[in-house]
């Protein structure tokens, strides 16, 4: 990897964001009652965002190490769990979804299967009891088949 490429790429992405931000802000306008308008402050923020992105492009720091194997597998699995969890929360009910998610996370972080399962059941059941039953914040309990 070229030295400093990461910072240059990040700088380019943020610079593009700053430009897009400036352009998008320009569309916001009101007819009356607001002398500054909703566009001014985002533009004011886009300027330093762009300038410091340029700094990153021209004066990058050395690259970090991306993709440390076998960590990447675990990272991908973690993200998959975290994305699936909100989708499964309502269909599966809170205790089951939470137990599954925490068991898989524990396993990914190196727990033995049995320990991961025990933890999952404890976290799923425990949080449900505390939030739903004790604090009275409603959480979906049972699997719902209406979906």
């Amino acid at each position: 990897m070229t030295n400093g490429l990461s910072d240059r790429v990040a700088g380019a992405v943020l610079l593009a964001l700053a430009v897009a931000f400036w352009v998008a802000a320009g569309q916001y306008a009101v007819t009356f009652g607001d002398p500054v308008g909703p566009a001014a402050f985002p533009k004011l923020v886009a300027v330093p965002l762009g300038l410091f992105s340029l700094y990153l492009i021209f004066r990058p720091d050395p690259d970090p190490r991306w993709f440390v194997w076998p960590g990447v597998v675990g990272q991908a699995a973690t993200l998959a769990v975290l994305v699936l969890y909100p989708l499964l929360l309502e269909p599966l009910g809170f205790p089951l979804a939470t137990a599954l998610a925490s068991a898989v996370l524990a396993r990914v972080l190196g727990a033995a299967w049995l320990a991961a399962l025990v933890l999952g059941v404890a976290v799923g059941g425990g949080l449900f009891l505390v939030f739903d039953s004790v604090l009275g914040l409603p959480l979906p309990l049972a699997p719902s088949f209406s979906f």
Partner: protein
Amino acid sequence: METLGFLAHGFAVAFTPLNIVLALIGCFLGTIIGALPGLGPVNGVAILIPVAFSLQLAPASALILLSCVYYGCMYGGRISSIMLNIPGDEPAMMTCLDGYPMAQKGKAPEALAISAIASFVGAILATIGLVLFAPLLVRFAIHFGPAEYFALYVLAFATIGGITGTNPAKTLLAAALGLALGTVGIDPQSGVPRFTFGVFELFDGFDAIVAIVGLFAISEVLVLLEEGHGGISARAVRVSRAFAQGREIAASAGAMLRGSVIGFVAGVLPGAGASLGSFLAYTMEKRYSDRRGTFGKGDPRGVAAPEAGNNAAAGGALVPMLSLGVPGSGTTAVLLALLISLNITPGPLLFQKEPDVVWGLIASLFFANFVLIAMNLPLVGLFTRMLAIPMWALMPFVVMVSFVGIYSISHSPFDLFMMVLFGVLGYVLRKLAIPVVPVVLGLLLGADMESNFRRALSISGGDYAILFQSGIAIGLYVLTLLFLALAVFLGMRERRPPGAEPEPAHD
């Protein structure tokens, strides 16, 4: 003298067996709620309001319970900041900067003890300030118009460059990114939705708690996996001592006092609140006493100042809440709602009309702080042992608590997705050595900064001169320039001796 009489009356109200029990429960629950990421004082207090109702508590008792939770949260937030590098709530974020490095160096007991004592000092001084100066402070606070608030935020953000040990340009970039993210949502003045792409869930902008959990907790899991210590955390430094050594505590006494004063002033100003309090307390303390560049690497003063600051701000925020009926922070807004639901009209007459409630509350705050310090110092040993819990058990628990904390309030899977996105962003930023703390500060305080800018110019009809018209505003700008000049001067002096002390790598 008259005040002392009122206070004595307050203690008489507060010291019933029931209220003492409630205060103990509140302090304990608050510490836990504060320590859990994703659950902060705002939802903690909001969650417990219905509980207080269903227990049929008298107004003073309900208020005592919930204020103890509020103060407990301020104590608790620091624990996960120090032990896990994940702030338990927004104001505890600044405590990560030096608290976690201290824990890594094996000084977790010191960090926990110093932060507990700093919390105590900040909270007690603020409560004394509340008793003695509330009417005076109110007269000071109303001089802060939009232009003055804007100047205060300029001071805060202009000095942000130095808050982390890394490249100042990256710190400023992170702050700009945070400010940009903070503009997402409905613009309060004009009602125009900005950068929302028509998604209704984005109309209220990014929730600071969602961003904090993502940027700190989820990115921490991702970083942890990369380090490949599958089983037990290798980060856990063996701690043989359960108690702190006195030397470092004594050395941070000055920082506690300075942090308390700054935090208290920030708290008194309605709308500024505890986050700004701890933020300013940290940056000012670093400017004042960081002669050897030890801040950000585990300097005890970097723990003492923001913790004193956020607790003093929490106390300070009660000044406008009790004497004006205007909340100084999100939590006091909830406490205010509680007052209203208890048939107590907040406002300037509260002290005269409801002395039992007000003085009972103040007395219970003194009491709560003694309970909290007595509870927290012995617990230092227990919290330190958290490091012995394997990461595979701790992190899924922390992530799931964050999820349920947010979901149980918003009932929106969307917030959970946003949290994961912030997690990925946090991971990438950390790999690039771009600090995440300024991103959250920008997100948290940017909206208020913009609102006050817009308000000032709406008042003047677009004339920018209004920003520089009052003595307070000019004073704040002069202070800003002084700090910037000092930073440039120190930066130039540091650069003279080439390679005197190489900057250690940060992850």
